[in-house]
């Protein structure tokens, strides 16, 4: 869409899948507003402008890691899960079955166990991410989480009690995507930092979720 019509700002997304041989990447996009709706309507073959990859990703995954995904937060965690063959468990959670959109085949990876949960019990275990995590936190290598802020707050509390290293991938509205406009600030113990440049992945202990 040319400037001056409607949407002006680029949208930030995590990489969902990447094929280093073909050079293809996949994005998993939740339709939340006009921009994502437009993207979803885009016909195959249409060229889109893409800037990336940007910012800092997850550190290497230690064995016995727990990946906690809430809804569309599955995108960066599916990518992370595919980065190793070490034993690891994905806790894939949402309010209801229809929000567990990630296809089964994408999560069939060597060494990966997947546990699904929904708040209403419409798929997998009935319960929240916090419920699943509490039962499995002991002995885990590290925790990696992406999802709604209330979920992250619960994850942070459980992990901090268990003294397990934890990383969050965060989301904020962005304008430039490269650290110039200072729009995508997130409150941390070290002051405001930028999701686009300093993140999107931050050590959980540094993130002030209600800030």
């Amino acid at each position, binding site marked *: 869409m040319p*400037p*001056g*019509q*409607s*949407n*002006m*700002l*680029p949208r930030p997304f995590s990489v969902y899948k990447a094929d280093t041989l073909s050079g293809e990447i996949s994005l998993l996009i939740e339709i939340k*507003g*006009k*921009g994502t709706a437009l993207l979803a309507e885009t016909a195959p073959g249409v060229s889109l402008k893409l*800037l990336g990859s940007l910012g800092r990703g997850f550190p290497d995954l230690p064995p016995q890691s727990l990946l906690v995904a809430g809804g569309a937060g599955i995108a960066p965690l599916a990518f992370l899960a595919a980065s190793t063959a070490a034993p690891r468990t994905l806790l894939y959670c949402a309010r209801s079955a229809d929000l567990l959109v990630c296809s089964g085949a994408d999560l069939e990876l060597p060494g990966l166990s997947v546990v699904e949960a929904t708040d209403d019990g419409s798929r997998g275990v009935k319960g929240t991410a916090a419920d699943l995590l509490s039962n499995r936190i002991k002995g885990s290598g590290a925790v990696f989480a992406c999802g709604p802020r209330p979920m992250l707050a619960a994850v942070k509390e459980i992990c901090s009690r268990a003294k397990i290293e934890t990383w969050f991938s965060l989301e*904020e*509205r*962005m*304008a*430039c995507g*490269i*650290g*110039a*406009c*200072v*729009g*995508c*600030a*997130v*409150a941390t113990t070290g*002051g*405001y930092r930028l999701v686009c*440049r300093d993140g999107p992945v931050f050590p959980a202990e540094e993130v002030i979720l209600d*800030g």
Partner: protein
Amino acid sequence: MAEKIFEPDLRVDLAGIALENPILAASGPFGYGHEYRELTGFKDLGGIIVKGVSLEPWAGNTPPRLAETPSGMLNAIGLQNPGLESFLEEDLPRLRGSGPRLLVNVVGCTVEEYVGVASGLEGVEGIGGLELNISCPNVKAGGMAFGTDPVATGLVVAAVRRETTLPLLVKLSPNVADIGAVARSAEEAGADGISLINTISGMLIDTAHKKPLLGNIFGGLSGPAVMPVALRMVWQVAEKVKIPVLGMGGITSADDALQFIMAGARAVAVGTGLFYEPHLPSQIKAGLLEYMKKEGLRNLGEIEGIARP
């Protein structure tokens, strides 16, 4: 007889600042330039107005700080910046000699703070001029008050004028009843040029959460949505002052830039448009050259204010 071929010359003199071309990066979206230098380079920018610099570091506003609007956006960054000392030690050395002329946007909550920044920049190598930001609508304690009142504008401009020998632009707020009066006051107090507009105060409400969308409640509207308002105000200011005008507000094309010049602007700045197209300065420069060739213009002075009666 063969048609006479003109070689267009994009150079302009903006308030004593010699620019290779009339396209500047507006203060704010461009940060301190480092990121865009890596992404697109600076070769087609005549000048860079770096993000607002205050005497002490400012933390900025509570997130969320951004929201998209029809044909534009709201921002409430809150002039987050590392302060004068850090700017001089960290940012300026990396920008010096990079090509475009550097102007520093100066912010403050009191006259003393503005004066402190201006005197701290006096005699510093590599700075082509100052842009006094009396208009940012995001800082509750400062900014706004100076720019909305011609008397307060005169006070702060005169105080900074005494402290600086650099070309001094004053950036006006559009959130006023009589923009011409504020511009006149800045000119009389010793400004060398006027830049306008800053963002237009606005807000959005998140109906799902039943509360304002921005952490700061109010933010500044920018982008193509504000362009006709900006153009009207440049027109009004150009009528009231003799000093040159730097026009900005929603510029996303060479045609937009030409409209500002025809309304009376000497040069133009791009801000929000960079988010859509980081290469916008190059596109505008190419478009201006094409227009000049087509119209047989040797320089843009030939059309500055040409739309005026």
